[in-house]
């Protein structure tokens, strides 16, 4: 393998793939970066087995030649040394070549490095993109979906399947659901491309999605998503992000969502969020951060919290509208705040079905987002 490449492009690519490389590797080969060269360009790969990131540098882009003298081949180099070496080289271009003893020679100006590499055949085989079962989303939309669901995944490993976000695609509607069995966040959106596609029970680890959200840019470009047997692949122009999926059956969540309500509250999102936030100041002391909510006449809500050792707080909130039965309910302030924080709309509707039943939070006039919280039993 041999090529001469612009150093700043290589550095940028290395920075991308380094995000996937962990310092604690389970198999030795994953401590390296895989470099693959062919006539189209150079591909770098980094992986920690759970997620893998591939970054592609095309040979030519917009008429500008990035890479010269390409001889096809592949090698794995130590991620511990390679990035620093490239960063500190003297010239704007760098030549990298390998011999059949897996030695990597890095040449730039007078500086010459000889690194011991490893055989690229030892590197895990990552699946390739199949265009027939892929669909597209806008970058910023995907980031929004991740933000709206991933906070609700479970952090405890007792039910591992709940540490992921469930993705279902049917009839051109794509639905993301996350739950930790105390609360649930879901987001639905229509698909603009590839309507015939359908799959269900795809569970993407929450950690992978959080990582993905950090990597993709906040813009209107398209990201292609494709699902293979055991991995999911997100592809932007030159960056591929792969994640393993969680194995198992995601619980059926649609039955949990009540379809009728006894009490409905319509209120300003910000006001309610701030009131809950204030009430939770004292509730933090008591272990599960519980606040109480009561409906009063004249569209009034009373939010209170009482921690005997500290004190109590009572706050009245004027809502737009309250319909239905009177209600007293307790719930976790943290869950409520998490749910309200991701709602950008000015007004929010909360539908209760009694003090012991889960309740739904939805932005007004937008049923793509649905949040469900289980109340806390207090005596």
């Amino acid at each position, binding site marked *: 393998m041999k090529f001469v490449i612009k150093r700043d492009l290589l550095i940028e690519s290395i920075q991308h793939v380094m995000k996937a490389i962990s310092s604690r590797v389970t198999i030795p080969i994953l401590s390296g970066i895989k470099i693959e060269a062919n006539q189209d360009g150079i591909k770098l790969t980094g992986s920690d*087995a*759970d997620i893998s990131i591939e970054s592609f540098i095309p040979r030519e882009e917009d008429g500008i030649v990035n890479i010269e003298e390409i001889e096809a081949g592949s090698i794995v180099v130590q991620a511990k040394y390679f990035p620093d070496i490239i960063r500190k080289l003297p010239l704007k271009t760098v030549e990298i070549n390998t011999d059949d003893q897996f030695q990597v020679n890095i040449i730039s100006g007078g500086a010459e490095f000889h690194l011991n590499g490893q055989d690229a055949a*030892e590197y*895990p085989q990552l699946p390739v993109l199949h265009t027939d079962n892929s669909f597209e989303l806008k970058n910023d939309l995907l980031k929004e979906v991740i933000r709206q669901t991933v906070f609700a995944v479970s952090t405890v490993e007792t039910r*591992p399947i709940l*540490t992921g976000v469930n993705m279902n695609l049917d009839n051109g509607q794509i639905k993301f659901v996350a739950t930790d069995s105390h609360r649930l966040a879901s987001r639905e959106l229509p698909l603009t491309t590839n309507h015939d596609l359908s799959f269900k029970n795809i569970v993407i680890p929450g950690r992978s999605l959080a990582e993905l959200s950090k990597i993709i840019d906040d813009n209107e470009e398209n990201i292609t998503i494709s699902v293979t*047997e055991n991995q999911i692949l997100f592809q932007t122009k030159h960056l591929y992000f792969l994640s393993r999926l*969680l194995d198992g059956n995601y619980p059926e969540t649609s039955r949990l969502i009540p379809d009728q309500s006894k009490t409905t509250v319509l209120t300003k999102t910000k006001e309610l969020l701030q009131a809950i936030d204030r009430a939770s100041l004292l509730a933090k002391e008591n272990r599960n951060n519980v606040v109480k909510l009561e409906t009063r006449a004249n569209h009034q809500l009373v939010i209170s919290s009482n921690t005997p050792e500290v004190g109590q707080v009572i706050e009245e909130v004027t809502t737009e509208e309250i319909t239905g039965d009177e209600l007293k309910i307790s719930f976790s302030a943290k869950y409520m705040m998490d749910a309200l924080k991701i709602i950008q709309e000015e007004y929010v509707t909360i539908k209760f079905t009694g003090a012991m039943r889960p309740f739904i939070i939805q932005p007004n006039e937008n049923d793509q987002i649905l949040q469900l919280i289980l109340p806390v039993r207090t005596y």
Partner: protein
Amino acid sequence: MKNWNDLIDKQPIAIKIIKQMLMRERVSHAYLIQGDKGTGKAEIATLLAKSLFCQHRVNGEPCNNCKDCNRIDSGNHPDVHWIKPDGASIKKEQIAYLQKEFTYTGLESKQKVYLISNADRMTTNAANRLLKFLEEPSRQTTAILMTENGQGILDTIKSRCQIISLRPLAIEQIQTQLESDGITPDNARVFAMITQNLAAARALNQDEWFAQARKLVVQLIEVLRTKQEEALLFIQKQWISHFSDRDQLFLGLDLLIYWFKDLIYLQLEESDLVVFQSYLTELEASLRYWTRYDITEILYAIMEARKLIDQNVHPTLVMEQLTLQMQR
């Protein structure tokens, strides 16, 4: 590169069982391979993992040449997980890692294999955690547990594994092979007893430390027999400084065990079986000194000492206690 046919001489029955099961595609979800040191547990386990992953398997034999086989050999296969004791035992975190691993889909293939060597050295917590997913195996996972001490494994784990017992090695076979290497018969016997493995035995022959260790054992017996009051001093001054780490201490105790076992053989007039052939006069002297009852007691004491060392009791204290027990 090994394949099943290379191992069949060493472990005919075990290999036959495994091959049959591979050919009939009836792979169980968990195996427990038990056998003494040097009986080929790791070899069998690796070969089994290869046979499960290799795409070019012929009659149950992996090709040893494809990507999957090569990567299993180099430890780089992403769907094969090999757990080895971290320090003295296999810790809870190591099993927790496995547990997490199995909630994910495979990186390349749909099947996964995990190998646990020295499975008897799992902590109680680790063993209980393992039990959890041994009990409800997810699809297409195979567990291969290896141990030298089948008794040290929880019954609940054992009952969930298919047990493959390996035949102990024939000491005589190794001994003759060592002798053909030019090692004296007396030494060959000791080496064969201790390592049960050709390569390790050859290494011992080169090892000055071992020669000195053997001398010390004989000296200790001598001191115990003739100058009892100096025995503790001997332990302090010579024994502890020579046997400085855990493995060395175990070896020292093993040598003592062989010595007293020899005494029993002599009493039974089975002098062919004696390990310390070159010290027959000293053995005779010991035999006059300790009664048969003493010898059994001492053997128990040495076994107990081994256990104590394993439990991190201070070696000097263990050895001192043992010396006091060995004094008549």
